[in-house]
């Protein structure tokens, strides 16, 4: 690192002071907004104050929908349910317990805790290993329907279809509620804004982009998604608390599926994934609706519906995208991407290289229906070995890799890593055992930068900050070597979708190496790479195994295999055909015939 650090530091300095400036921007904007909204009731008429209070509460919900949909990629109609639960918890507490300060505090606590409990349940139901985005949307659709029906069946307790009215509320005037709503909105938006610029937010985007890669970096996609759902359910409940107090009416529609879809419409029109877009969009649309729907009730809905369809098809980024396009044209509008500084992490104490095998595969077999893909596979691999897995197409090499790295894959036989069985373990838990896997097709996060991808790979070691961006990125020496040899260290701020095929392969390798695995699984790491890139990857692998890491390599390029392997295993038609030293295997007649296409059975 020492050679590069000064140069990088110099180049980065002006950018860094700008970064500090842009880091304070949310606080400045939030402060100004809070002041403006505080004085606003003095100049607005009663109708506007009333309507805007409601609009701002809805905007809080829009922020939660945007975080889930725009950032984490979970299309949700369920925020209405959490809002409704929060509002009903408040209304019921105030109706049946009273509005003394103590009970008000209880109502506030309930309005957050109850939706969070429901959010936890919904999250658990929606997100599991191999769950789909569509399923989460289905559950988010069912939730408000169930909540609404429960409200209907609550009889006197919930006021059934007429809702609850006339309970005592916070002792505030109209202006007071306006200011309360404004403060909550500013605070929630500011928190969300800080969060989406933090390292932790990158994990959400990563899950949206490629949840498989996340799991194979040892992150638990479902845990992240469940946590997000739970927290945002609490925020929606808080909005419900303010709503119940400000309007002193709650009705089943507040928790309904239709309201949930309205939230999505507002967020879509404002511009998903931009936070401010949905906030301003929601306030503008709700305010316009209140003004126009009196005179032109159907026409207004018609216009809104048409605009929504048009935006979804033609302008998926919403109105914010239009603004952003204009902004990007302006000379000062282009933001310089800032990447963290690379430093070498202190090497982990090497586990004593014992004689016991690191990876042990016993009698592994796998079939899809009647088709047997693998059978009778027994392999042992020790620390420091580099074992190449070769064989023609369809020999079962990639399937074997999958069985090694995902314990939920249905197969028979046993796989153990460092003595621990992998049976039933999801990929992220196998990563925790010290296994890193590189996929055949380069698997990185397309919407993130090179530095962010590496940062996520280090998340199991260095926690991700939910409030800021780390200034340094510490990586093990081997990962730094990969970056330097491939020139990726100069592209840290580059979005990965702009990388070449070879650069993506190298980045993924660096990510896997950054995990500091004991066992590294590589599926055709050199496919489609240039000669120079291959040599680099070969050198990295040799250094790693020299340090006691074990590697399993699926590879077609026999030259490459010959150069770097310590042992070669040949798979043919799902069986272990040969397992021996490089010379034994390369000179065997079997391999020659398999590779020129003659061997059968």
């Amino acid at each position, binding site marked *: 690192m020492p050679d590069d650090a000064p140069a990088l530091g110099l180049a980065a300095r002006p950018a860094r002071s700008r970064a500090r400036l842009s880091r304070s921007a949310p606080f400045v904007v939030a402060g100004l907004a809070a002041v403006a909204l505080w004085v606003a009731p003095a100049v607005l008429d009663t109708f506007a104050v009333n309507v805007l209070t409601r609009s701002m509460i809805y905007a809080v919900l829009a922020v939660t929908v945007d975080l889930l949909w725009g950032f984490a990629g979970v299309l949700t109609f369920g925020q209405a349910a959490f809002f409704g639960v929060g509002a009903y918890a408040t209304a019921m507490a105030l109706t049946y317990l009273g509005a003394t300060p103590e009970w008000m505090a209880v109502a506030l606590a309930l309005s957050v805790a109850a939706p969070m409990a429901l959010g936890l349940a919904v999250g658990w139901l929606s997100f599991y290993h191999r769950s789909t985005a569509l399923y989460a949307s289905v559950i988010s659709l069912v939730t408000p329907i169930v909540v609404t029906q429960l409200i209907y069946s609550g009889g006197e307790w919930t006021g059934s279809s007429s809702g609850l009215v006339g309970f005592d509320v916070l002792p505030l005037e109209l202006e007071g509620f306006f200011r309360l709503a404004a403060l909550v909105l500013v605070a929630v938006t500011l928190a969300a804004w800080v969060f989406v610029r933090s390292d932790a937010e990158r994990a959400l985007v990563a899950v949206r982009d490629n949840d498989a890669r996340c799991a194979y970096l040892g992150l638990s996609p479902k845990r992240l998604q469940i946590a997000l759902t739970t927290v945002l359910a609490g925020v929606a409940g808080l909005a419900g608390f303010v709503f119940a107090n400000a309007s002193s009416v709650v009705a089943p529609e507040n928790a309904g599926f239709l309201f949930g879809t309205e939230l999505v419409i507002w967020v879509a029109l404002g511009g998903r994934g931009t936070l401010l877009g949905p906030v301003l969009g929601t306030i503008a649309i709700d305010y316009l609706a209140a003004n126009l729907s009196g005179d032109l009730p159907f026409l207004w809905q018609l216009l809104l519906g048409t605009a929504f369809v048009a935006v979804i098809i033609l302008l998926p980024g919403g109105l914010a995208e239009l603004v952003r396009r204009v902004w990007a044209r302006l000379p000062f509008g282009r933001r310089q991407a800032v990447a963290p500084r690379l430093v070498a992490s202190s090497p982990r104490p090497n586990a004593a290289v014992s004689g016991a095998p690191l990876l042990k595969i016993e009698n592994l077999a796998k079939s899809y229906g009647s088709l047997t893909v693998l059978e009778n596979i027994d392999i042992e691999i020790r620390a420091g070995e580099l074992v190449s897995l070769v064989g*023609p197409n369809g020999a079962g090499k990639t399937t074997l890799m999958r069985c090694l790295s995902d314990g939920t894959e249905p197969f028979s036989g046993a796989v153990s890593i460092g003595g621990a069985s992998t049976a039933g373990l999801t990929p992220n838990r196998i990563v925790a055992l010290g296994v890193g896997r590189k996929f055949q097709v380069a698997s990185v996060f397309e919407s993130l930068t090179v530095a962010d991808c590496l940062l996520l790979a280090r998340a199991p070691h260095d926690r991700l900050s939910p409030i800021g961006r780390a200034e340094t990125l510490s990586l093990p020496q081997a990962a730094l070597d990969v970056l330097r040899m491939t020139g990726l260290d100069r592209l840290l701020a580059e979005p990965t979708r702009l990388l070449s*095929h070879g650069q993506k392969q190298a980045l993924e390798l660096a990510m896997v190496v950054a995990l500091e695995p004991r066992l590294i699984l590589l599926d055709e790491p050199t*496919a489609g790479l240039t000669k120079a890139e291959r040599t680099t990857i070969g050198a990295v692998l040799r250094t790693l195994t020299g340090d006691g890491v074990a590697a399993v390599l699926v590879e077609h390029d026999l030259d490459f295999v010959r150069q770097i392997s310590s042992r070669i295993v040949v798979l043919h038609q799902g069986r272990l055909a040969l397992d021996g030293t490089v010379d034994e295997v390369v000179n065997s007649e079997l391999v*020659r015939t398999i590779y*020129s*296409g*003659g061997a*059968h059975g």
Partner: protein
Amino acid sequence: MADAARKVEAPAGGDLVLEGVTSGYGAVSVVKGVSLRVAPGEIVALLGKNGMGKTTLLKTILGMTPLSGGAIAVDGASVAGLSPAKLVALGVGYAPQELALFQDLSIRDNLRLALSSDKRLPEALERVFGHFPFLADRLSQHAGTLSGGEQKMLILARALMLKPRLLLIDEISEGLQPSVVDRIATALAHERAASGASMLIVEQNLDFALRVADRWAVLKLGEIDDEGGVDETARSRALAHLGV
């Protein structure tokens, strides 16, 4: 076998010309500037290892992967930007490598899907039964119940249904017993002798490829690495480029 067929003058075969063809997925080019010709009645083998762009090239010709540079012409007319349906209507038959059958449909339905109407179905079925008689008795069986070799023959039979003028075949010999490879080689030779069809066959099985083809080319990292006619030097030259 191929020698006998080559003598047939075959005006019925399609003339495929690729000029600097570049294509891929998103920003990644998998095929880079490939120029290649398959003359009427000619069989050209495209060799190369996995991930070198062979399948992508076939899909680009067929219009399934967008062409990002260069030109593709069939019989002198550009086919760039045409849908697969249009190419099939021009007489291009395709035998894909992976997931190439509707496993849960009958053999008959699998074959029917190659034609755009049922009018010429009996005639077309007779034609492919000539190549692979076992299909005739098993028309109502699901394709998924066939053995691996039978499935490959069904894939080829389906590509032959529309009496193609140009055949694109992707690794038809993969994982097959020598006897089945024989039957497939025979079927290809007979088809060319009978209809004069031109063929571009993607292969990793060098023995099979050199047996049926007139010319060969090796694709490496998306580019043509070497090419030549099938003669006594072909095997060693191709092997050298395949890196074995």
